[in-house]
């Protein structure tokens, strides 16, 4: 298949319900390379778009475990090996007092892994994206809901896909230039 002349077709909807319904219909019709744009998070879209579970939780888990080991290890090393000081007659390896900082580093590393992982998995930073060429796309951050079927989808055909999107009763369907 030669490179399509456009990036895809985008349909504009006026409610989140209409968007979820449209995405479900598109998935059932066999479309896979599509994305939805909405000013608010919509939990159901994940299933409607046929998205796979993200790898992010595993990245966060890895970050958290690293933080726990690093935080505890740092304290253990500092108090028993590097600077062994007698504090109040307590053992050098006083584990109860290590728990709280180790917990804090667990949270810190998890949160950092979540933010960085999210940015990287989303493909950010991304200086250019064709969807912004769509007329009225700025409304996606206000009160409109968009479903874009991309030209790289094997089922994509400029005429039939446009007809399909129009059958979903959108406000309008527009081409998205590269």
């Amino acid at each position, binding site marked *: 298949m030669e490179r399509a002349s456009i990036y895809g077709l985008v349909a504009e909807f006026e409610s*989140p*319900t209409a968007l979820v319904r449209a995405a479900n219909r598109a998935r059932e019709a066999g479309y896979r390379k599509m994305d939805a744009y909405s000013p608010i998070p919509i*939990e*159901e879209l994940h299933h409607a778009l046929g998205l796979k579970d993200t790898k992010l*939780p595993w990245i966060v888990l890895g970050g958290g475990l690293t933080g726990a080991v690093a935080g505890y290890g740092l304290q253990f090393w500092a108090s028993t090996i590097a600077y062994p000081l007698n504090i109040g007659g307590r053992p050098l390896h006083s584990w*109860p*007092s290590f728990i709280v900082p180790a917990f804090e580093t667990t949270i810190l590393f998890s949160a950092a892994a979540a933010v960085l992982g999210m940015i990287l998995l989303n493909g950010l930073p991304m200086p250019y994206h064709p969807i912004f060429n769509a007329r009225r796309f700025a409304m996606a951050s206000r009160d409109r809901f968009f479903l874009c079927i991309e030209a790289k989808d094997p089922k994509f055909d400029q005429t039939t896909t446009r007809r399909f999107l129009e059958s979903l009763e959108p406000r309008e369907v527009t081409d998205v230039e590269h």
Partner: protein
Amino acid sequence: MHDATYSPPASLDALRQRSLVVGVIGLLAAAAGAFVSPGQFFHSYLLAYLFWLAAALGGLALTMLQHLSGGGWGVVLRRIFEAAARTLPWMALFFVPLVFGLRDLYPWTDTAMVAQDHILKEKALYLNVPFFLVRAAIYFVVWIGLAFALTRWSAEQDRTGDPALAVRMRNTSAIGLVLYFITMTFAAIDWAMSLEPHWFSTMYGFLFIIGHAIMGLAIAVIMARRLSAEAPMSGVYNAGHFHDFGKLLFAFTMVWAYLSFSQFLIIWSANLPEEIPWYLHRLNHGWERIGIGLVIFHFAVPFVVLLSRRSKRNAALLAGMAVWLIAARFLDLFFMIGPEAYPDGLGFHWLDLAAAIGLGGVWVALFTSNLKGRPLLPLGDAGLESALHGQHH
């Protein structure tokens, strides 16, 4: 489109009768034990009582919490919480046997011993039998009053759908939660902490309160799972609801671990002679095994299981985790008050089990009977429709 009345299924009757039989047998066994070893009976009964009181007060606290927080999870569970809260008058009745066991349970009732002990002599202003009973009466008046008012208005809301009732329930819950925290803090001091009258911890009441939240929610999750097996509730609870219940259960378990560890850390750090005996007793003589068991069963396992999104959305697994947490709650209470019953080291008497099963059977029967008396969803609640069908309408 739905059976709009959500009237309880007949199978609840069978559950009620079975629990009642188990409960009566357990209580008869416990009563027989009371003649053989009265001292042990009162300790076992106190453990069982605090364990099941948590189920009733957990219901009340979560009823109030969901009135304040809003959200679909609370609307779909509210009737279960209310049914648990409405067992409170019975819990006041079940408190009565303890009144006869004060001398067996609480060292501060021994006036001759108190006269010799400077600290207890000063504390006698608070720790004396008449004031103890007056306080217990106040706690029950507050709790039963709140349970009665909130469930009565909720039933009225079913009939009228009057939005003013929702406002009234929300306002009452705001004051009610504050009252519950204060009364429960004092109740925990009176009924459990004063078993060791020299010792004190300001965090102690919160440990009971978070225990109530876990117990109340765990019972609601199990009941929700059971109800969803048949009409009219089949299909009412979806994976999203169980996901929410799982998140809350996870959060409550974390708070429990946070509070339990904080209390330990603070006392361990200060290392003061009047505070550490409580832990010295619990970290020796076999009790340390229960302590380590708590870290594993009450924290590590629920934490790992409930961390995953998939297990929270799996109703069967979540209900299993709820049963697990109820068992862990028993273990935690046993760790908190057991060492005073077994001063010579870790022990377990058959009466501990008999009393817990006996009182539990009766409690479940009362709870089920309350649940049976009302529609299983708050029909007049403005949030019901969106709680059942998601947000986008």
